């Protein structure tokens, strides 16, 4: 039995696939010409990234590698309870390390610090693949403040570059500013269910 042929056990599947084939009978199904636009391959502009993140009314803190812990600490000033994933790579004062906290436990924590997998200059987006230092998805979702540490060399020019960078990852989250809604009279309000504050700590090498 070739792939896609009837498995003999699922009449709905058989019916839908048969209906597709009937619908396309008599149609030229030859492959189409090349359909991808050429990759832009543009250099990433870190300043543009900062500008675009701020456009979403997220905060950006720029710092040197030896200032990361201090910048993160400042961003967490006055925050009641902080959680971090394993593998963050630096210490956060008084932070709890996630060991599979339940949703209600996470809800009682105000801040979270994570790393990112990549970032996009053109759209001001950070991309998480939820590996070490980034934590599982709930971690960067339930607390109300998300501090995300991004290295300048992780900033890519555009969406195609980021899609390529995270290809093959079983789970990705693309974050562009704090959660927002425009559902009431199309007026943008930051902060609905996701973190109402997003602070991006951008780590740039000493020049």
């Amino acid at each position, binding site marked *: 039995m070739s*792939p*896609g042929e009837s498995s003999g056990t*699922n009449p*709905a599947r058989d*019916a*839908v*696939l048969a*209906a*597709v084939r009937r*619908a*396309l009978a008599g*149609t*030229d*199904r030859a*492959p*189409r*010409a090349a*359909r*991808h*636009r050429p990759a832009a391959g543009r250099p990433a502009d870190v300043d543009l990234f900062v500008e*675009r993140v701020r456009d979403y009314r997220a905060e950006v803190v720029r710092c040197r590698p030896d200032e990361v812990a201090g910048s993160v600490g400042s961003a967490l000033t006055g925050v009641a309870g902080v959680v971090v994933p394993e593998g963050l790579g630096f210490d956060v004062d008084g932070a709890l390390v996630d060991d599979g906290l339940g*949703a*209600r436990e996470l*809800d009682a924590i105000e801040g979270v610090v994570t790393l990112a997998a990549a970032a*996009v200059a*053109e*759209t*001001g987006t950070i991309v998480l693949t*939820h590996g070490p230092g980034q934590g599982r*998805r*709930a971690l960067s*979702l*339930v607390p109300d403040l998300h501090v995300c540490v991004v290295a300048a060399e992780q900033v890519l020019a555009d*969406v*195609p570059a980021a*899609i*390529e960078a995270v*290809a*093959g990852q*079983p*789970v*990705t*989250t*693309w*974050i*562009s*500013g*704090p*959660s*927002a809604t*425009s*559902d*009431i*009279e*199309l007026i943008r*309000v930051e*902060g*609905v*269910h*996701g973190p109402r504050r997003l602070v991006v700590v951008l780590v740039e090498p000493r020049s």
Partner: protein
Amino acid sequence: MSGTFVGMPAFPEAAAEALRNAQLRTNLAHATGTIRAKRLAVVGEVEGWEDLRRAGAAIKDEVLLHLDEHLVELERNLQAAGATVHWARDAAEACRIVSGIARSHRVEEVLKIKSMVTQEIGLNEALAADGIAAWETDLAELIVQLGDDLPSHILVPAIHRNRAEIREIFLREMGGVGRPAPADLTDDPARLAEAARLHLREKFLRAKVAVSGANFAVADSGALVVVESEGNGRMCLTLPEVLISVVGIEKVVPTWSDLEVFLQLLPRSSTGERMNPYTSTWTGVVPGDGPQEVHVVLLDNGRTRALADEVGRQALRCIRCSACLNVCPVYERTGGHAYGSVYPGPIGAILNPLLQGPGHDEQTDSLPYASTLCGACFEACPVLIDIPSILVDLRAQVVDARRGGVPGGEALAMKAAARTLGSARKVRRAERIAGLVGRLDLRGRRLPGPGKGWTRERDLPQPAREPFRAWWKRTGGRG
């Protein structure tokens, strides 16, 4: 069952009714005007936007022309990633599958991410009949659900409601289904959003089962994609134990890298943003992260009918951005309810008839005529759906479906016109008769019968005493 609301009148009556609602027209003009400007600004800054549109259309065409192969590949990769794949021929079958999964977990409620397809199949009503409450978690859907209302826009379902109405709905209804709205709630949009946050948070934290749609389903990896703004989607995709995603079969894209095109086209066309706040992708069960039981329901429900329509097939490229609604001058005046379906606006005017077939009912048959064929929708569509051409083709299908019966007034008029316009001699004779009418002063007249619609608020033109062809005959064009 279908995406058409039961018992809705045909478009002209529903539209006329909507036009009398001055508040609605003000809300709509403001909202669509705002979003049009935002869209133009962010589209304008993309170099090669037209190339992107062509790429989006080409990818979707490739999907549609090889849909069986892509679906089988998607199924295989979903299963390999630990998801259970179900197939549904129609709405009832899809609802049975979802309800069955929910009931097997003995839950009394499920959480919902905003999804067009679950509205199309009437999932909430079907679950309610089985004793399961489906809570909408998108703010606009929550407003619609609490207000026992119907959605009127693909992206902003409560676009017809203003802040004062929303405050009133929250104060009146939230307490009956969960945490009440704060007693001192104002109509400040930030306060209203916060009330929704607090109301839904307890539901997120206790949820066992969530139901989503998907913006895209990637065949080569089995990844599903949800594009959203508020984070309610992330909550539903992450916190519950069981996730059920209902996915129309046209949502497939062949490869992961195809997403690079759609993640640029969709947010800019939809909310007029460079990127929406949150996009989630997940591939089946992700060990240690999120729901450990994942179901995907692949739904036909008329899509293969649309696929068989050679002109209309391209409507299945639609990525539900709603740009066509926002630029449509008809939608701007009537709002979404007049279309009588979860798919309003220009895309609804083609999608509903394509999914159901011409001659299905009066309401659906009226939709292809709910357009001036101005082409603004085609110009805005990120995947180049030629909506005006499909509308014209569907009109022919509607007319053809009614041939053979007793011809109505319009059919008789068209037949008569065809006879007259088939020959210049007959046109000359008709013009001589019209010339007699031309001696009457028609200004300010309101006519009965077929002329009524025109003359209620518009003057009729005076037929010429000497038509052009008579002048040409008399003067040889040198008069």
